[in-house]
């Protein structure tokens, strides 16, 4: 599997994904820095730990506005490499089982999602230190950030988007072009956002709502956040279940796909 992952990673060299990830990260972190720079006098409160507020704001931004579109683009960028080269036929004519190729691409997408989230977390901390230098009135240096909160919340945000990854991965393999999968994905994100604010039960079963209802960001209806199993709330449990179902269905379908 490592060998396959090495090959998959090499394919990303100079690809859309290779430029897309750093660009998105820099853009989002740039906006975080700009927003906090412009609003410094309203956000800074004397003798008050600014880190919880700062971390919550940045993580909410990530969960609500960044991670779902990022998942769509990541899956599309990884699959686009094969589609652009018309390489499926050559790939499946290798003496490697289709299942392993399927898994290696999925692992690459998950790895990139984790890496992006991790880099975002470090970026958020870095901007915190930078804000402290630029605007000492924030008093960020007088307090310590809650690393546990930052990384655990970021981890649960990733878990709550696994359902979207699963859906997009299967759609990306099902359709030849990128547009249908991306179109369905963006429609899903908008619908998920609207539904998560309602008091209906739909968002608890709608994968594109899961990143919004999994955390208390003050946007989604708190009704959707009850703990279901092993400390997991509906958003995370639903996301993991959706991911597993999609991955198994995709695996089954990919093994039978006729490469024309």
């Amino acid at each position, binding site marked *: 599997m490592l*060998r*396959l992952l*090495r*090959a998959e990673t*090499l*394919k990303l*060299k*100079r*690809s859309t994904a290779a430029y897309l990830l750093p660009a998105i990260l820099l853009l989002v972190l740039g906006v975080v820095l700009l927003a906090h720079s412009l609003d410094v006098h309203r956000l800074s409160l004397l003798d008050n730990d600014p880190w919880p507020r700062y971390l919550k704001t940045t993580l909410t931004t990530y969960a609500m506005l960044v991670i779902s579109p990022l998942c769509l683009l990541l899956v599309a960028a990884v699959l686009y*490499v094969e589609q*652009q*080269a*018309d*390489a*499926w*036929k*050559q*790939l*499946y*004519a*290798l*003496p*490697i*089982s289709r299942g392993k190729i399927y898994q290696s691409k999925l692992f690459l997408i998950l790895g990139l999602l984790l890496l992006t989230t991790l880099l975002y977390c470090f970026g958020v901390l870095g901007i915190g230190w930078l804000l402290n230098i630029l605007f000492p009135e924030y008093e960020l240096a007088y307090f310590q950030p809650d690393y546990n909160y930052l990384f655990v919340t970021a981890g649960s945000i990733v878990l709550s988007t696994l359902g979207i990854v699963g859906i997009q991965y299967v759609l990306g393999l099902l359709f030849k072009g990128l547009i249908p999968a991306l179109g369905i994905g963006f429609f899903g994100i908008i619908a998920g956002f609207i539904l998560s604010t309602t008091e209906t039960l739909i968002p608890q079963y709608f994968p594109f709502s899961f990143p919004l209802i999994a955390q208390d960001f003050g946007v989604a209806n708190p009704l959707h956040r009850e703990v279901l199993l092993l400390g997991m709330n509906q958003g995370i449990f639903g996301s993991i279940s959706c991911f597993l179902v999609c991955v198994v269905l995709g695996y089954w379908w990919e093994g*039978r796909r*006729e*490469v*024309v």
Partner: protein
Amino acid sequence: MLLVEEISIPLTALMLIPFLNMISTNNLTYAYARQGPTLENLDLNVPEGAIYGFLGANGAGKSTTIRLLLSLLKPTSGDVEVFGLALPKHRKAILARIGCLIESPALYPQLSARDNLTIAATYRQVDKARIDEVLTLVGLAEHGDKPTRKFSMGMKQRLGLALALLHDPELLILDEPTNGLDPSGIIEIRQLLLELRAAGKTIMLSSHLLGELEKIVSHLGILHGGQLVFEGTTNALVDRRKAKYSLEIQTPHVNLAAELAGLPAKEGRDSTDRLELQVSEKSAIPALLRRLVKGGVDLYAVRPLASDLESIFLQLTAEKN
């Protein structure tokens, strides 16, 4: 009992004698969804050490057959054996010994030729030193670090061949490998294929360029409308055609000549001064010509017609139609 001396054949000669079918299919049938069968009861036999030309017009089913041989499609019915092993049961073992080029080469355009080969070498666990060898073999040694999006069609075809040769396969399945190549490129690829055959490789080569196949293949399969209308050596095919001797005469009395030769009436025949005639035996040619002259036909020229692949192909497919 035979004595050893009586059957002593040089080892090198023995190695050249095809003794095994590298590819064989039995009643292979394939139908795309909501379509009639694209291939029907195909019995293909590609002997070891051959350059097997797989000939057919566009849409005849060549690419579909190649995809079935590489397990990219599942047959509707029938069996496929490669190296004597059944597909799809021994898929991995079979594909490990095949190098293929399916239609246009699948290249990652943002990557260099060397990177494209490195990916294939990683998948196939091939030593990286082999990359330079195959680049040199296909004449791309100087372009190894150039992104393939800047390659011409001919360079892409060569890189596709390099990818197929990377793991030194026993069997090469090449779908239209000379597509997009200029005449000198075609000659180079032809030379390379002949060298590969001499090195003991078996090559299955699909093309609709009849003249191109004619120059290099030892065996031929002609596909028409999803059915194999001929399979055998090129000599067998030419001999089959030679069972009928063709000649072309030039005369101002085309209709009269046709009548004397016993050809059925055909409208517009006299718009030309040439007529193709066929006889079943060589010895019948003088008698025919005498009959024509006696009948008042002035003969300006008589020319035997070559039995080239193109005319044979056209004849075979016309018979099938």
